């Protein structure tokens, strides 16, 4: 970029700042709503896929496989372009939130299912021995322990969800990518605009990651596991008691 090109870009950037700020808010809104829906879907499908009833389990598995096996891009386009032809017109943002929630919810369902399965069976047995019924066992014993195992994979999914939100700009939502793209068109500063965009997403991802790391530390502290995120405090360290013959848990 020439000096005059830089000057043009910077002055256009200054003028576009409010719009970029709005785009940033839209991106954050889509991420937050998408993640909230994904969390609901993840627990619903994750718990259903552990049901004792074959029909419930089978249906949950089928939905998860379908949602994971079809592209998020195509799902979003289907909601935005195909659904109106069937008589349902959703607001573009709603299409995005729905697509993110279903797609990442399906991945999250696997996280929920796996985390619950990773809580030692002995914990459930101890709860049974105390007369706790299935709902109480899940709510008071299994989920609180599974939660600590869910946070790290949920962190990854949340950051992936954030990075998927630029798809919104393809269905007319004025998100961060959309606004920066406008800046690029206005200035011709393609390299600078997209570099800015990279840095903004990187900063957002870092912020979300830091928040999730704090949640992870808190969850582990409650289980009596002292180890930072990314440390060796994986599933094995969560076990309260090292099992004989399977020694060497992470703690």
């Amino acid at each position: 970029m020439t000096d005059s090109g830089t000057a043009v870009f910077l002055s256009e950037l200054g003028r576009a700042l409010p719009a970029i700020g709005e785009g940033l808010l839209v991106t954050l809104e889509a991420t937050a709503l998408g993640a909230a829906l994904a969390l609901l879907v993840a627990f619903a499908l994750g718990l259903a896929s552990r049901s004792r009833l074959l029909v419930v389990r089978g249906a949950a598995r089928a939905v998860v496989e379908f949602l994971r096996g079809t592209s998020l891009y195509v799902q979003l386009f289907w909601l935005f372009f195909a659904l109106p032809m069937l008589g349902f017109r959703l607001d573009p943002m709603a299409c995005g939130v729905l697509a993110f929630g279903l797609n990442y919810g399906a991945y999250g369902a696997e996280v929920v299912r796996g985390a619950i399965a990773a809580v030692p069976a002995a914990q459930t047995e101890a709860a049974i021995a105390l007369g706790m019924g299935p709902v109480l066992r899940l709510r008071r014993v299994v989920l609180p322990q599974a939660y600590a195992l869910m946070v790290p994979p949920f962190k990854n999914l949340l950051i992936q969800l954030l990075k998927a939100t630029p798809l919104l700009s393809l269905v007319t939502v004025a998100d961060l990518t959309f606004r920066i793209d406008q800046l690029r068109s206005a200035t011709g500063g393609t390299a600078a605009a997209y570099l800015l965009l990279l840095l903004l997403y990187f900063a957002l991802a870092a912020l979300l990651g830091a928040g999730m790391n704090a949640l992870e530390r808190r969850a582990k502290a409650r289980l009596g596991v002292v180890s930072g995120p990314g440390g060796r405090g994986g599933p094995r360290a969560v076990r309260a008691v090292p099992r004989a013959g399977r020694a060497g848990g992470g703690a």
Partner: protein
Amino acid sequence: MPSDHVPGAEKVRFDRVTKRFGDQTVLDGLDLTVAPGERVTLIGPSGSGKTTILRLLMTLERVTDGVVHVDGEPFSHMPSGPGGALVPADERHLAPRRRRIGMVFQQFNLFPHMSVLANVVEAPRHVLGLDGDEAAARARDLLGLVGLADKEDAHPTRLSGGQQQRVAIARALAMRPELLLLDEVTSALDPELVAEVLDVLRDVADSTDITMLCVTHEMGFARDISDRILMFDGGRVLESGPPERLLDAPEHERTQAFVRSIT
């Protein structure tokens, strides 16, 4: 034993109970009666089905064949239909009956996401529906009984194995069980921690009339608390009798060899 079985005076009765895991038969048509307040210790080589008996009573396993009775009524099964034929028990049948039974595990199995006090409070509070203060008072009494009154805020993983097991005993007692199952409760402990746990259990045995079924390799303890010791082998009771007789003058060669090997 079926021969000395008095109706109405039984806490537990196994009626021809068979348990198979795959093609492995762990219990083979077992008959067993435990009287109210009786302390019975099960000994025998590993894999002889002792722990399975406890797990069947705690409903952690289901019988393959036969019926387990508790308090004179079917426990593993329930009457169904006009004929009252016995069918495997459902959760509704088991839930109220299971509350009268407590179990202490080899690996303690304390809840790692709760403090020591919360571990003991949990079931009285949420299963029996006691209010918070009442449940906490009951829990503190029991933590005092097991000598851990000063550890109520501690995290379970910060305690020694012996302390964890004592919390587990307090946790089981907090439900005021009529039948207490002790599954090799000192087997996972370092040798120097065994005594503190057994002392607590001796106290419990001396100060309550809880029926106790105990699987252990601690013969001194078994001798102290047991009314009767059963020697298991191959899913059946090989012989049974009061501790002095069974430990000091066993009839069967296998019992002699087993007792010699662990004392």
